[in-house]
């Protein structure tokens, strides 16, 4: 350990002394590993005439310089990516209580399901007679999501939650237009995910912010004020919200917005708390999206792919994107494109089918009883961890029951000069992924913790213990906490430098300064 970091060896974490960071050469980029003439590729026999390149592709169209893709043997390719995987962390590696992201276990059976050739090998433009199994699966998933949400008709097309939001907002827009209206304002609480206001703008609306009250719910008085301002197209709400709290006034909120002519959109990012316990449709919502990569165990893949299917109330069915999956009287499934009031198409083909197969597998495995247990356990686990850290963190809403996640504040550590960011970085040294930090924005030094239902009590105890050790270190060795992580392949990274001098691609030596 470098003396310059001011670490006290007696306080360095358990395995820190054994830290052996890989030398830079072992973390070379794949382009740096490239050597002329090496390669892994093979192609089948050509069999047809080997027309000379000059005749095949005229010079005016032909590539002048090949893309500098790596030249690497297959074993070195595998070693490169295996080495990189070792620098990464997933749910398979350990606890991942990243709030609002629902990092539950991704059952491996899902992966086998999506790779069945009868699913993965389908081309989207095959005749429908050859894809009846896939369509049946999609149709079942649509019905299940409708049942879980308490609404009526599903589209599986949106590729992610934010894409579902945009699709929902375009439906809201079309529904108002069908009544000869064009209201502009969508109400958004100050606790909302960043995607909500961004989607509102992309949907052609203007966000109308509404404050939270002292109990963490929508401030009803302020909501009445915003509604009185008129021009209300709708409201987007996460419930439980990003504070992990169920909004106790949800039916009153729905009434106020509906009376103002608005529609209610449910951001399903936190649906893991209420499966089979409370349905958005019953709360008064008109449109719901689910993040299958949160609630329904499809893996997040380091940033996607996800899927963001949406479910709507019957009155909004005419506006769903095309195609809509239907079943004929003969029992055959088919895609219906002839929908005069549709908003149009929101992505090519039919959505992230391979992700939807995984979601189907999860719901089919668990059934109604299993899904309810998912939410019960998720909420129990979150409350258990909240109790475990109650004496360490400020819990601004700690007098309430949290749902699947809770938000604590690291402000009690501020007196030692420790911020939420430092806590997060030091937790990395204890082998757990930190919570979401600095979100929601209304909580100072926020740490948003979502353990999920798939963590055992042992894992939760280890998580709580890690929090306690970091809090102890914050008092006894704040420099250590501020300089964390100290056990990982890299130390704290200079994000300001990355933004000030953006280097966004490999710099090949032959290009000199400034890239290609």
């Amino acid at each position: 350990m470098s003396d310059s970091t001011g670490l006290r060896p007696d306080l360095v974490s358990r395995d820190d002394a054994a830290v052996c960071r890989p030398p830079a050469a072992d973390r070379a980029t794949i382009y740096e590993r490239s050597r002329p003439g090496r390669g892994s590729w093979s192609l089948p026999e050509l069999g047809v005439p080997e027309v000379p390149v000059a005749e095949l592709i005229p010079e005016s169209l032909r590539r002048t310089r090949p893309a500098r893709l790596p030249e690497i043997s297959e074993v070195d390719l595998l070693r490169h990516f295996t080495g990189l995987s070792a620098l990464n962390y997933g749910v398979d590696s350990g606890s991942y209580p990243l709030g609002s992201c629902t990092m539950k276990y991704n059952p491996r059976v899902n992966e086998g399901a999506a790779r069945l050739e009868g699913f993965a090998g389908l081309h989207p433009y095959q005749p429908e007679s050859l894809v009846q199994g896939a369509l049946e699966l999609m149709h079942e998933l649509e019905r299940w999501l409708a049942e879980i949400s308490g609404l009526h008709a599903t589209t599986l097309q949106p590729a992610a939650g934010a894409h579902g939001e945009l699709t929902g907002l375009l439906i809201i827009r079309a529904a108002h237009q069908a009544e000869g209206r064009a209201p502009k304002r969508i109400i958004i609480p100050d606790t909302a995910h960043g995607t909500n206001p961004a989607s509102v703008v992309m949907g052609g609306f203007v966000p109308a912010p509404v404050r939270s009250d002292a109990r963490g719910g929508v401030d009803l008085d302020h909501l009445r004020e915003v509604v009185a301002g008129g021009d209300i197209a709708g409201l987007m709400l996460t419930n439980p919200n990003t504070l992990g709290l169920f909004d106790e006034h949800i039916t009153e909120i729905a009434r106020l917005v509906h009376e103002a002519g608005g529609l209610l959109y449910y951001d399903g990012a936190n649906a893991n708390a209420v499966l089979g316990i409370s349905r958005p449709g019953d709360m008064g919502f008109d449109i719901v999206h689910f993040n299958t990569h949160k609630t329904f165990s499809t893996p997040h893949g380091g940033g996607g792919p996800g899927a963001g299917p949406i479910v709507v109330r019957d009155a909004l069915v005419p506006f769903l994107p095309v195609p809509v999956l239907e079943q004929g009287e003969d029992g055959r499934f088919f895609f219906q494109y002839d929908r005069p009031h549709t908003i149009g198409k929101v992505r090519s083909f039919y959505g992230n089918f391979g992700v939807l197969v995984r979601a189907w597998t999860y719901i089919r495995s668990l059934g109604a009883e299993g899904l309810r247990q998912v939410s019960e356990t998720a909420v129990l686990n979150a409350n258990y961890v909240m109790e475990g850290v109650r004496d360490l963190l400020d819990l601004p809403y700690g007098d309430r029951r949290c749902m699947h996640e809770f938000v604590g504040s690291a402000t009690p550590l501020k007196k030692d000069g420790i911020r939420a960011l430092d806590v997060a970085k030091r937790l990395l040294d204890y082998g757990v992924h930190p919570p979401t930090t600095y979100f929601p924005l209304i909580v100072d030094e926020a740490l948003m913790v979502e353990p999920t239902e798939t963590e055992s009590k042992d894992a939760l105890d280890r998580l709580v213990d890690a929090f306690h050790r970091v809090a102890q270190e914050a008092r006894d060795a704040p420099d250590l906490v501020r300089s964390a992580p100290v056990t990982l392949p890299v130390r704290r990274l200079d994000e300001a430098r990355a933004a000030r001098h953006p280097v966004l691609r490999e710099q090949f030596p032959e290009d000199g300064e400034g890239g290609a």
Partner: protein
Amino acid sequence: MLAAVRAASIGDLFAEIPEEVRRREPLALPAGLSEAEVVAELRRLAGKDVPATQLVSFLGAGVYDHYVPAAVDAVVSRGEFLTAYTPYQPERSQGVLQTIFEFQTAVCELTGMDVSNASMYDGSTALAEASILAGVQTRRGQVVLSAGVHPEYRQVLATESAGYGPRPRTVGVRTGAATDLDALAAAVGDDTAAVVVQQPNFFGALEDLPAVAELAHAAGALFIVVADPVSLGVLEAPGRLGADIVVGEGQALGNAMNFGGPGVGYMAVTTKLMRRIPGRLVGETVDLEGRRGYVLTLQTREQHIRREKATSNICSNHALNALATLVYLSWLGKDGLPQLGLHCARKAAYLRERLLALPGVAAFTAGTVVREFAVRLPRPAADVVEALVPQGYLAGVAVSRFAGLFAGLVPGGEDAGDAALDDVLLLAVTEKRTRAEIDAFVAALGDLLASGEVGDE
């Protein structure tokens, strides 16, 4: 655990949910299944399908049946990649961050552009986002698209533009299926934010990119190219021909067809547009001891920082598919990609020559083709496709399925209306098709057309 949280029962935990919205009866879903049972159920459903991979398929139109090497699945199945979230904690996410950096590099190299993001959902949404970018950059209200852009991509752009972004105006293709440059020139004006063509276009025709670039730039518009990445092994990089934004679909690079998704969209731009690109960007930096490392960067463009002022609402992208693409491109390497491109181009040229030798079959796509092309048949293409299925062929895409999206935009005259495309069949040839399969397919099609059993003249 209940005692630790001061609850007498699980029900206590939900006491704050108002009675009137609490559900009493169980959800109406099938009962749960063991893993063995659920796998059996999945096999039953998958068994009702006949996948293109088990037939002799000439289907393309945006999704292609290229061989996926075993190394790809070996990498993307690793739990450290598969089960990670977006890399918000860079010190524990160097693996995925470095792969994204390497992916960005590969996309820049393929397209000849300066900056690539970490991926988009698919080609269609990447195009819609590119159009929005152009609208913001130029402060103009219209985007001019060639009818040679994939019809579903055009639909998606039109849908999204209902809320935000430039409104589309479409110009037709001329005989031979390349964009009608005169019509394009006439459509471009003071309010044109961008001009969009696809290379090769939907019909497989190759566009004159330098000419379109000049036309767009002369009007102060950006030039957006939708590019097929496999073809970029043999075709000039759009970035060297004047493109300001290049977008496309990367499914063909190491991803299964998956009934159309997930594949992976990509977007690459010039340095000038770097701060307007949507989505995640990974940049190189150093740690506090000077070691090289990677972080998400320029995040003030993004929704989680900028909220309603963000360049896009995108949060999740298609990182795992981007990783598959990177592994595939690394497996092919600098020599393999051009060799694959030539291989497909030779087989496509051969198939086209054989088809055009059949009585009544005529060229729709003229000139050089690299993997995909369209022909006119003496029978309705949809009927021909259906008639050849029992023999084990997926003959291609009958373009009539998109007829409404080409009305008045293809040669054949506006009088012909939708019927102008009834006889057009779009065929794609990957390296998986053998000469024997191609020859047998041409013979089967020839027999079918000669028999007169399908459709009317």
